[in-house]
């Protein structure tokens, strides 16, 4: 059952997340609103993946609340996530997408057309019958993007979607994401690639050691960062 209202804004209120007796994420407040993509940047191990999983609803905060459109514990019927290392189902490329379409009860008469459209969107036309696990890493990444788009999400979480791609493939994925964002899908993308963040994002969240150091609109973040860490991160000398 789809709730009638929106999952946006996505809010983190005094969220702490612990795993293995360690405090991994400690967010006083974060609000993700409709509009251009939000980039979550930070060095390896900063907590980007954890933040995305909390936002998707795959983790529950140890302390505090995550809310979607003001409500807690909203099932992810209109959110989708592309994991950092996506896992293909042991099925054909088309059936991987079909599975995602079925997961949101897309009418079966439209599915063939949608599968073809989505494969074309990510540059995999003609790959319908190929076993998904036989595709190259970059092809699997793009198929996973198509699969996450098949859920027709209101919010799309992308965990370093271009990290394993060569520059040309990364650029074409960015083009897809820009088109998707223009259709009104809210994108929350984690990346340690500042170029991607600069090209795509409307606002940037910098996290380091589980804390948000800065959340600014893109121009501010890149031209006049407020924090020393943001300056150092952009100079590539912010390490763990």
């Amino acid at each position, binding site marked *: 059952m789809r709730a009638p209202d929106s999952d946006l804004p996505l809010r983190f209120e005094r969220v702490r997340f612990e795993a293995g007796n360690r405090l991994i994420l400690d967010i006083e407040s974060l609000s993700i609103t409709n509009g251009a993509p939000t980039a979550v940047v930070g060095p390896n191990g900063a907590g980007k993946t954890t933040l995305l999983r909390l936002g998707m609803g795959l983790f529950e905060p140890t302390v505090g609340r995550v809310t979607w459109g003001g409500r807690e514990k909203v099932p992810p019927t209109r959110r989708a996530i592309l994991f950092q290392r996506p896992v293909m189902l042991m099925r054909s490329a088309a059936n991987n997408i079909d599975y995602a379409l079925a997961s949101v009860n897309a009418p079966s008469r439209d599915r063939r057309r949608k599968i073809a459209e989505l494969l074309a969107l990510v540059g995999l036309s003609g790959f319908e019958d190929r*076993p998904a696990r036989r595709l190259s890493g970059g092809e699997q990444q793009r198929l996973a993007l198509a699969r996450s788009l098949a859920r027709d999400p209101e919010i799309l979480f992308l965990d370093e979607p271009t990290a394993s791609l060569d520059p040309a493939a990364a650029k074409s994925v960015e083009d897809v994401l820009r088109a998707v964002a223009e259709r009104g899908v809210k994108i929350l993308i984690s990346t340690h690639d500042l170029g991607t963040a600069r090209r795509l994002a409307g606002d940037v969240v910098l996290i380091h050691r589980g804390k948000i150091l800065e959340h600014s609109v893109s121009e501010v973040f890149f031209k006049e960062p407020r924090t020393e860490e943001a300056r150092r991160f952009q100079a590539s000398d912010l390490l763990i």
Partner: protein
Amino acid sequence: MFSSAFELLITGDPGLYRIIGLSLYVSLTATLIAALVGLPLGALLALKEFPGRGAVIVIVNALMGMPPVVVGLAVFLLLSRSGPLGSFGILFTPRAMIIAQAILITPIIAALARQTIADLWVQYRDELAGMNIGTAGSVATLLWDGRFSLLTALLAGFGRASAEVGAVIIVGGNIDGFTRTMTTAIALETSKGDLPLAIGLGAVLLIIVIAINAIAWTVRRTGERLAGAA
């Protein structure tokens, strides 16, 4: 010695074919029933965390080694005239044999399925959660995507069912033309000293088991190749 059983086979001896047919019918039906119970049970043990899950897994694994005569005895007591299910009057019928074999091999199928599905679940877990797939949907997906590996679990169950003699002889009674299977016939002929017939039946049993495994192996390889699993 070998010739007499094959002679019976080639001449189409109805008694022999009835024995072979009944054996296949009982063991295949038992495997089907055990699969209907054991596969979802294995999947649930792989997916669901609940108190005492570890103990249940240990018990199911231990039950893989249940002696057929013990299962036969238990089913005998259940189905005997004075037993709790005695009113059904199915003791010494093929149905009783199917029940006994199904009980015998359900733990085998459940335990092997649990292992297969747990391995696949590690890979699929995040993706299925991200697609908002509930427990029932996840079980269905894992059973389907693991179907070629699960075939091995079914084969193990069928192999055990078709090879055992202890359970079917107790609850079936080895009645000529009605509940006599290949294994009970072999046991009887051997005890009567009719070794050629026993050996012939043993060879037939072996050929059937090898043929079924060969078919399953081919299906698995071809299927895995087409699905891109291997």
